[in-house]
């Protein structure tokens, strides 16, 4: 393992070179974030005002992306939709990794009974068909955006715990841990002050990947009619509500669909790159 270490050191000393694709992905995520924060300022129209007499129309100078069945401005709805597209996935990624980090640190460092209980539980959770569980449990509980977020947090904990645990196992045999132990440093301090900063890049990279999966899953549940409340401007919900106007205004479907793909692809590219660059 000495050769990669030298390579690693050399690589770390080089100035950070970010590929164009990653820059574009970061730009896209920035743009979506701006839409989420400054929705009111940017949107050309209210996403809620209905014009039942107008109905669904093709793009025109007045409505750049046209209107939906209830005459609402599609572009404004897509811009406002950035909110539910970002907030939920951030909560899922952060929430799942907060719990998974704790479980993974304990399981990987302490070993013994704690480790075998946590590992068994992770194995069991991973044997469940998670996407199916998400649909059925969220649906039976009556749906709703935050119900969906909560169920996804629970389902994401197990795979995330496995990731943190194996990262901890990789740190454990290293000399600095032995040094810390021989100095009599407490277990808690070793876990949170010494190991945690070393595995933080891995956690960050996988959290970004979690964001992408959570975005797709939340949009999917809203598409099935189980996520956000009816009327909420949300990309998945727009696909559900506008299913029947594919002929009269396809933009009302293709725009939110494109935004889901763009955001998810961007997050996955960034996550993969972080993993490649900092976590290996």
């Amino acid at each position: 393992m000495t050769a990669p270490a030298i390579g690693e050191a050399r690589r770390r000393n080089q100035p950070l070179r970010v590929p164009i694709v990653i820059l574009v992905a970061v730009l896209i995520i920035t743009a979506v974030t701006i839409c989420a924060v400054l929705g009111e300022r940017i949107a050309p129209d209210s996403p809620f005002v209905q014009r039942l007499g107008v109905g669904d129309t093709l793009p025109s100078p007045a409505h750049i992306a046209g209107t939906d069945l209830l005459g609402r401005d599609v572009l404004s709805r897509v811009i406002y939709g950035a909110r539910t597209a970002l907030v939920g996935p951030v909560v899922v990624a952060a929430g799942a990794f907060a719990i998974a980090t704790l479980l993974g640190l304990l399981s990987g460092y302490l070993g013994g009974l704690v480790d075998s209980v946590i590992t068994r539980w992770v194995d069991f959770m991973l044997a469940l068909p998670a996407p199916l569980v998400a649909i059925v449990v969220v649906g039976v509980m009556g749906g709703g955006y935050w119900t969906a977020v909560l169920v996804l947090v629970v389902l994401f904990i197990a795979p995330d715990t496995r990731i943190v645990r194996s990262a901890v196992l990789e740190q454990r045999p290293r000399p600095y841990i032995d040094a810390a132990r021989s100095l009599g440093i407490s277990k808690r301090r070793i876990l949170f002050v010494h190991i945690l900063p070393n595995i933080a890049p891995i956690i960050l990279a996988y959290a970004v990947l979690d964001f992408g999966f959570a975005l797709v899953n939340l949009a999917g549940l809203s598409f099935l009619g189980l996520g956000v409340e009816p009327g909420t401007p949300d990309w998945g919900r727009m696909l559900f509500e506008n299913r029947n106007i594919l002929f009269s205004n396809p933009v009302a479907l293709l725009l939110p669909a494109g935004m889901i793909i763009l955001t998810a692809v961007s997050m996955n590219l960034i996550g993969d790159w972080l993993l490649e660059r900092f976590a290996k």
Partner: protein
Amino acid sequence: MTGSSLMVVVMRRIAVAIPLLLVISFGVFALVHIAPGDPVRSLLGARTSDPVTLAAIRARYHLDDPLLVQYGKWLSQVIRGDLGVSIQGNQAVTSIIAGRLGVTAFLSLMSTILVLGLGILLGAVAAFRHGTWLDRLVVAFGVFGVSAPTFVTGIFLLYVFGVMLHWFPIFGPGSGFLDRAWHLTLPAIALAISVMAIVVKITRAAMIEELSRDYVMFARARGLSSRRILFAYVLRNSLIPVITAAGLIVVGIVAGAIYVEVTFSLPGLGALTIDAILKRDIPMIQGTTLLFAAFVVLTNLLVDVIYALIDPRIRFCRVAS
């Protein structure tokens, strides 16, 4: 020795699958109690709530018994093939499921063939042409496929090939084998893309590693043709990791089928499940969920056994440990 060690592997896998199935069935049973409100009301549906009907429902679902006794009685009914009555049409859940199974089975089979055939081919080609533009194209497709959900690719396919080009029908499951295959082509592709991305990724990675092994260089030095090295040795060895991903593939297909059936308005089990969820038809939800989950667990069991059969390392390793 080989026969008995294989038996040990099979028995061990069954010993894991049975508790898993029991826990899943308990979860499915508990759905009645997870649903907000009184279970009797959930099971009543749109029927009039006279005391006689309410008492009949309490008796039918043993709601006055302790929870575990309820579960035991429910499970014994399920094992005998009685999944209860749908609250919508007062029809047996099993007969409704039987009527919808065909479309879902056809769709899943079609996309599984696409996933394995095209996925392994693309992965192999990318690995063989490692570092070229073709490889990069396949990798890009992989990233896209993993990120783009089934319902989104489905809508794009529907628009381009159904609405713009009129190559494929945009509605209905079709009748007869060829007509059905034609109707289900776009749904099967939409379903296949995201799952295929996983297969492409795994095949490519496994194959790149396999191509760099000493035996490949030795075979080249001995003058064996590239085609023979690729198909007879490298591909065969690279497929083992794909088999381990079978669990992901099955779950991807089953969950994806739900989204695809809703996107393309197909009358299959997935659409039936969503319909039942939106109408709070608990017995129906229990029926389809149990079927999907059992299918996933049993397929995984079967794959594990096949895995032990093809790769001798697995059965000797496990038995030795």
